């Protein structure tokens, strides 16, 4: 059942679907005993995924059709000959912890497509539109697929951390959704690399929606936001706009050029720092010398390690520090 990390890593690089499935099961495993194996697996594929492929985040408010858009985009990428991994994040129920995943159409007319791998993840109480296992799952898929699409939950305003784990952020909105721009301007929504107006089911609607957004963005640009942002219109119903979207994504990936590896590293550091902060609060961060010091420590440790282990190591460090600080007090007679 549980293959060695070396076997899994080799399988991933050979694009073996069973290895991909097992590797994803492993990175979701929350048992402490799995930590070392997860870190080992991520270290083994580290160099292979440092600059490879393209990770695209599909984000946006609920109800804009992210699932159908992701599916149609995946089809379009497949037509361009690219192999696609899709990570779809769905919310977990607060009451039971359970979730309903995969309320999305598999593609094709009966025969599964070996060049497409879809994995659903539940948020499992993780805020921010992703799942705790999302970054590791993305790396696993990146080792085996050309493009990794990351579809977030659609919680809307709080999905800011997707920026840390993807190369390109595509924000999906509906025609006539002025509130999205309000969020952008107010800074509660991350600035995307691409703006996609979905459900532009007929020509007139598409044209008007795009020009509406453009004029609204012009206002935003005056206050220093969204300069040069591409706006595209798509319709999953008619299939309109997906070739253009795929091309625009590829162009953004190309524009990243040499900065890609650095961008991914910075994202990884930010994610690890966020995990540490979530675990130990600002007090913990201060104890390790503040945010900048924390990030520097993570950045130093990461090349030889992996995020879960680095966070664990820093946690241990912090806890030792804390117990040293508390210990003398405990001995003081009251």
């Amino acid at each position, binding site marked *: 059942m549980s293959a060695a990390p070396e076997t899994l890593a080799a399988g991933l690089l050979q694009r073996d679907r069973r290895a991909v499935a097992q590797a994803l099961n492993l990175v979701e495993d929350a048992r402490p005993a799995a930590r070392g194996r997860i870190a080992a697996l991520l270290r083994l594929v580290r160099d292979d995924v440092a600059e490879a492929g393209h990770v695209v985040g599909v984000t946006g408010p609920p109800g804009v059709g992210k699932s159908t858009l992701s599916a149609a985009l995946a089809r379009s990428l497949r037509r361009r000959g690219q192999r696609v991994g899709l990570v779809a994040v769905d919310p977990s129920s607060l009451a*039971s912890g*359970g979730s309903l995943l995969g309320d999305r159409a598999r593609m094709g007319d009966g025969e*599964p497509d070996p060049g497409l791998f879809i994995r659903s993840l539940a948020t499992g109480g993780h805020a921010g539109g992703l799942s705790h296992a999302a970054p590791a799952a993305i790396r696993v898929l990146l080792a085996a697929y050309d493009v990794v699409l990351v579809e977030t939950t659609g919680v809307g305003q709080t999905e800011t951390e997707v920026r840390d784990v993807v190369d390109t952020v595509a924000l999906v909105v509906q025609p006539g959704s002025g509130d999205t721009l309000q969020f952008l301007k107010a800074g509660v929504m991350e600035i995307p690399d691409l703006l996609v107006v979905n459900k532009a089911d007929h020509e007139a609607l598409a044209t008007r929606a795009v020009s509406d957004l453009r004029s609204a963005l012009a206002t935003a640009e005056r206050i220093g936001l969204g300069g040069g942002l591409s706006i595209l219109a798509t319709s999953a119903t008619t299939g309109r706009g997906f070739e253009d979207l795929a091309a625009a994504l590829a162009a953004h990936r190309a524009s990243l050029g040499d900065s890609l590896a650095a961008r991914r590293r910075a994202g990884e550091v930010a994610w690890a720092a966020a995990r540490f902060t979530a675990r130990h609060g600002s007090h913990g961060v201060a104890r390790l010398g503040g945010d900048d010091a924390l990030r520097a420590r993570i950045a130093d440790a990461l090349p030889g390690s992996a995020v879960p282990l680095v966070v664990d190591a820093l946690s241990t460090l912090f806890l030792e520090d804390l117990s040293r600080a508390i210990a003398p007090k405990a001995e003081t007679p009251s």
Partner: protein
Amino acid sequence: MSERDRPWIMRTYAGHSTARASNALYRTNLAKGQTGLSVAFDLPTQTGYDADHLLARGEVGKVGVPISHLGDMRTLMDRLPVEQMNTSMTINATAAWLLSLYVALAEEQSAAVAMLRGTTQNDIVKEYLSRGTYVFPPAPSLRLITDMIGFTVERVPKWNPINICSYHLQEAGATPVQELAYALVTAIGVLDAVKEAGKVPAERFPKVVGRISFFVNAGIRFVEEMCKMRAFVALWDRICRERYGVEDPKLRRFRYGMQVNSLGLTEQQPENNILRIVLEMLAVTLSKDSRARAIQLPAWNEALGLPRPWDQQWSLRAQQILAYETDLLEYGDLFAGSVEVQKKQRALEEEAWAEVERVLAEGGAVAAVESGSIKQRLVESNAARLRRIEAGQQVVVGVNKYLEGAPSPLVADLDEAILVVDPKVEAEQVASLARWRETRGDVHAALDALREAAAGDANVMPASIAAAKAGVTTGEWAGALREVFGEYRAPTGIAASAPLTPSVESAEGETARIRRARGGLTKKLGRRPRLLVGKPGLDGHSNGAEQIALKARDVGFDVVYEGIRLTPAQIASSALEEGVHLIGLSILSGSHAALVPEVLEALKDAGVEAPVVVGGIIPDADAGRLRDAGVARVYTPKDFELDRIMSDLAELVAEASA
């Protein structure tokens, strides 16, 4: 004695195996005193696939008759003169095609097409919501419907081109108010679309309104159901007058056929079902002002498997006794002026109208289908119903009360108490289809003309009829339109549904216990247990799968549910990709014997080792065979205690991971 009223049309929903076998069945049924035909098509025909398509495997001839081309239609209607028949076809996504075949046959027989009488169900909205045999997206589906209406109003004026179905909404769990509201907004959606398409001249529009007919359901609360029918009559009259300005009262009449509730038929003590069926029939017959035009009754043993001719005859006899032996048809309306009935009727009208307005404000029936909002409300109503039965708040005799009794001689030999479709039927249909393709002429031109009509503004009916005459097959017709219109998948409606079970604080008892046990399982597995709920084959009845998926979420599973109509290979692929611990398959079309082994094989090929459970209308003998093939558990309609099923599932995952 006053003059007796004319009885309603009596039908039996029938068809299976082959066109020849079904034709023989129809002729026997007519000889027994049945007065109209009700054709049941198999799922490949309903979803536009030929018998040799990958997705048709195991489904050919199962829940109805396979009609692949004009030759099959000829055989189906052999020695049944189309001019004299009143033929109701339960057909929706491919309704335009089946009507084309019927018209082509009539023309071939030199029958007067204008004389044809019958009904094509053609209510695509309820297919998205409940029955699941949709093919195309909502907009082109509505366009096909408007084309058929335009065609029949001109050429086949006695035909009912669409039969708005509240029937399947109740089967999906709708309350009487929901049934009223969603059927009426569907009718409004269709009529508005016809008006907008502008293919019917304004002066003919009242005639179009007059051709809208309905197909309703009646459940066991037969007094409320009768009041519902009276409310339907009143609300429809209001819509016809106020929204469409129809002045002729004849054209405002609420014309409907009905089949009583199958949802309430039980697998336990199944002989009791005939009593339920009779009581439910009263709901649509007692009140003359809201009496059904046509009635078809299910058979007492439908929860066990496919009914035999004798079972259907028993239901027909119930109709005949009510219509011909009793004095019911000698009186005017028995409830005119009844204070109680009026009070209930008014209450239903008011609540239903509020719901109609709510859906219209949301953009109408089609918008509410696309957003999943109606579907979600139906799923919630059904969950509430199941919860009441499980908790014993709603009595179901023989199920949750009065369980003790003498064994029924009717089911002494269970395998004999249902109809078994010969598995050879599929191979025969595939072979005859191959012969048809070899002997017919070139169909390219006909298909090109069909595509052109579909892509443009022309009515697709003439091109469809020409294609029928040219020898085009069902799969080719639907394939051509799939190319033009695209294929649709409806929202499953479960993602946003409210929890079935009360919140954690108050969830005492079984559900809470399962949740705690599941918590231990999560620790053991390292991640939350994952369940894949899969519906292989063409069966679109997703209510059972939806309820299992929701309940599993509420006890803390991560549930992957991807909707209907998946191939075994797709299910295996999902199971692998999603890393599930357990797979639950739901099949209600009776094709489990063919499909389940294929799924097991596909899972093995994909390297998935998770245990598999199956739910459906599965006779005992088949259940044994499925278990022998490696299925861990088999569930049938008698397993209504969801909590117990959930405990089972958690145990299976624990055992498999040990």
